């Protein structure tokens, strides 16, 4: 790479390593301290006098602009260092801990999390996975100096405004040049570094795209221009504009990897990005649930205090259970990336597919409790509707789901034949949420779906004597039986899929199988979390109540085994939710102390 085209005039601080040595960044205490620091800086979100509280966030949303004070806070925290691998001077060592830190930001404001940072993370993945050392150094310095990376993907099947159209890379007079327009790119108008997936050959198939890393400042003026803001119902404070290139010359050295590597590189980076982004977004649903609890505590539900309204308590406990299901799958997905498992890409796709569905349903169920207050756009409960509007945006709607299913469906046949219901050993390190992991290696990110260690959890749990579940063993045992039966049916159906033909896979039957598989994975992830916290410090997770509720909810979605109204030990789950609400801690696996 010619450094002349990619020089960043960063300040001294930019090049300074942000941590003494990467090893220290792994430690639970270090991560918890960073999260606590961020919480302290943001302060009490419910305090109307706090400019960084909900009132300020709602005002920025109304203006349709990023909230300047909040972005300054994140500058002060040096949040960008979280996005840069430790080897390049940043603090990024693990996917699960990165999601944990960013979840604090998403809990406040999903538009801030997305617009300030998450898309630099998504763009960066391609650079860390395939960039030359000069490209990596440049991108790292850009981020460490407070700059941004934006990313534009190619046109995907059933593409929408985010995933339609694509740029074309061609050669004219011996020079590479880029043309075309893309309607929506997050931060397109304020990112200096652009990661652009573009078509580099007219041929069909998987070798016709390439990825470029461009320095916006080095591109000739007049050859690139910004398109107008794209209006969305949600995430109004997140800059969404488009870009148009017209015969724009790009340096030879801007290719990430080789020409034609675009699709494979995207699949590799998706193995990281698809689990990490939904894991962050979970923070938005946390605030929606917290607001519903706050509303119920202040106003009651249906004219009754929540203590005397069992239906309201069930709804609240159900929402908390959904968040724990989501976090269990996200945990397995993000930790699989750290372990370098071949099946990471499938787990990440399952996370990207399933979490938006569960979170959508979860917040809409909560809306029943708030009643007409779901329409309020200011005041104490106004933040609820904002999170409901924001939640679907990062999923990218149907095009996002189709892309995730496009990764899962081709693997189903081989997984069914080779890995389901075999004696594949499990992988306890997927679930030990506070334990160290090897440093994330973007070059080793898996797309070769080998052993399905999550499904192995189901087999292992079925063998295990569930008496550890105490009085709930009698409920747990048949639930595990139903899930094993579902996996057996899935194996039979998926093994019958013609494994080498895209055309024979492309029908609703296959997509429904893929959907059911993601639910089975979520159940397996919950089981894994429960089994591997036994004897650990997270005593709520080690007890069976949440697990039984989670598996009941998953079985209901699968349409197997239990009537939709089967009661679970929801009272215990509600008690824990209530404790966390009163003591201000997070509604995810980590039970993290919050500012308020």
């Amino acid at each position, binding site marked *: 790479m010619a450094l002349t085209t990619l020089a960043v005039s960063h300040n001294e601080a930019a090049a300074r390593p942000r941590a003494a040595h990467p090893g220290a960044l792994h430690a639970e205490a270090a991560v918890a301290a960073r999260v606590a620091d961020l919480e302290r800086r943001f302060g009490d979100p419910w305090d109307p006098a706090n400019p960084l509280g909900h009132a300020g966030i709602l005002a920025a949303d109304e203006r349709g602009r990023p909230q300047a004070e909040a972005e300054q806070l994140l500058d002060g925290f040096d949040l960008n260092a979280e996005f840069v691998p430790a080897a390049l001077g940043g603090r990024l060592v693990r996917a699960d801990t990165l999601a944990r830190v960013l979840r604090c930001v998403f809990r406040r404001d999903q538009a801030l999390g997305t617009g300030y940072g998450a898309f630099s993370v998504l763009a960066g993945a391609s650079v860390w996975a395939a960039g030359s050392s000069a490209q990596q150094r440049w991108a790292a310095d850009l981020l460490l100096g407070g700059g941004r990376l934006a990313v534009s993907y190619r046109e995907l*099947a*059933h593409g*929408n*405004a*985010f995933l*339609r159209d694509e740029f074309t890379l061609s050669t004219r007079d011996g020079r590479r040049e880029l043309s075309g327009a893309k*309607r929506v790119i997050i931060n397109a*108008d304020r990112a200096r570094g652009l990661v652009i997936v573009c078509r580099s050959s007219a041929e069909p198939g*998987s070798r016709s795209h390439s990825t470029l890393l461009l320095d916006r400042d080095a591109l000739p003026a007049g050859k690139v221009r*910004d*398109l*107008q*803001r794209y209006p969305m*119902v*949600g995430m109004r404070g997140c800059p969404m504009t*488009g870009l148009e290139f017209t015969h724009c010359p790009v340096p030879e050295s801007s290719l990430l990897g080789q020409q034609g590597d675009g*699709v494979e590189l995207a*699949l590799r980076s998706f193995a990281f990005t698809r689990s990490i982004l939904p894991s962050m977004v979970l923070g938005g649903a946390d605030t929606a649930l917290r607001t519903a609890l706050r509303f119920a505590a202040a106003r009651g539900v249906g004219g009754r205090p929540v203590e005397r309204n069992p239906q309201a308590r069930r709804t609240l406990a159900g929402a908390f259970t959904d968040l724990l299901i989501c976090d269990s799958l996200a945990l397995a997905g993000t930790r699989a990336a750290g372990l370098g498992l071949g099946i990471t890409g499938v787990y990440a796709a399952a996370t990207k597919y399933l979490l938006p*569905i569960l979170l959508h*349903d979860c917040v*809409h*169920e909560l*809306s*029943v409790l708030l*009643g*007409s207050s779901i*329409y309020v756009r200011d005041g104490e409960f106004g933040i609820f509707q904002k999170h409901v509007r924001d939640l*679907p945006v990062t999923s*990218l709607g149907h*095009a996002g*789901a*189709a892309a995730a299913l*496009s*990764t899962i469906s*081709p*693997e189903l*046949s*081989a997984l069914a034949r*080779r890995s389901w*219901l*075999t*004696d594949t050993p499990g992988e306890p390190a997927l679930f030990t949420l506070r334990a160290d992991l090897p440093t994330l290696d973007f070059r080793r990110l898996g*797309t*070769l779906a080998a052993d399905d260690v999550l499904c192995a959890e189901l*087999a292992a749990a*079925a063998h295990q004597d569930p008496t550890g579940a105490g009085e709930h063993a009698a409920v747990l045992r048949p639930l595990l039986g139903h899930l094993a039966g579902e996996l057996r049916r899935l194996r039979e159906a998926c093994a019958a899929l013609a494994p080498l033909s*895209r055309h024979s*896979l*492309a*029908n*609703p*039957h*296959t*997509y*429904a*199988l893929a*959907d059911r598989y993601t639910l089975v994975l979520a159940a397996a992830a919950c089981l894994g979390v429960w089994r591997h916290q036994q004897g650990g410090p997270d005593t709520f997770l080690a007890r069976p109540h949440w697990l039984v509720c989670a598996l009941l*909810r998953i079985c209901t979605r699968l*349409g197997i085994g239990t009537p*939709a109204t089967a009661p679970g030990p929801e009272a215990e789950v509600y008690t824990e939710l209530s404790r966390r609400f009163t003591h201000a801690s997070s509604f995810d696996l980590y039970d993290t102390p919050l500012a308020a």
Partner: protein
Amino acid sequence: MTTAPGASAVLPAPSVPAEPLQVTPQGPWHTVRRELAERGSVVVFARLQDWLSDFPSDLPPATSTATGAEFGAGMGAGGDSALPALLGRDWQRFTQMTNDDVRGRFLASRLLLKYAAAAVLEARPADIDLAYKPGGRPYLRGCDQVDISLSHTADLLVVGITRRGWIGVDAELSSRQLRGSAVERQICTPYETQLLARTHQQARNAALVRLWTLKEAYSKAIGQGLRFRFTEFGFAPGARRVQVLRPDGTPGSGDEWSFCTWSVAGRYTVSLALVDLGFDDAVDVAARTMLDEAMADALLRQPQNTRWTAQREVRDPL
């Protein structure tokens, strides 16, 4: 920075579907597909008997032990053994139903949903996995390019389909007496009661039936059915633009919502609620084009997928 024109910075006005279209198992499905492509949403209605004639209404009595094979065989010459496969997971529920009217309506509505979904996804009805959310809302498992909603009353079935977000439909007999009933007090917000008081007596029942169907359609679109209390939100009877209002009449939901009410077959009131999240989703909703070609090809080319025949002997530890 230069800013190119190209799209307006305000949300595009949501397009409203055309009048509901009557369908039988024979169609006209090409019209349904065209409406969905052009307008983003389509509402179809059907007569119960049109959908039961291919599957006789004198169905064998429900027995808890009936299996698909037994049922298919029991249908004899007039039957159709394709029914268990067509109903999928709903088959078991169907066989356990004891009331003939309930069975008939259940069967006809599931057939209509599957045929309509298959028509727009350009797939076989038996390949559609009709699933239910925990609250009972039907959806097409694995195919979220379209959202569906179902309503039935008397001998009318209504299905709404959209490719633009979320949809809810509801149908009631226009003659249903709501005026002066307990229901009137249970469904109206203070603002609605105030406006209805100004409505002429004759028009008041029609306004109430319309309100009821709008409320049902809206709460179905947000996935909550009757759980979302009808006194927590409302509409302005008589207003030109239909929008969700708070109980005191101030604006509720935003411009992303649109609503419609039609009179169908001379005796039914049918309402639709639709929310468009603004993704500008693709016109193409066919199942066969949904699998991304480049991604699927890259994955199918991988060694573990091309060597699948060399599987090791599997044993079932469960």
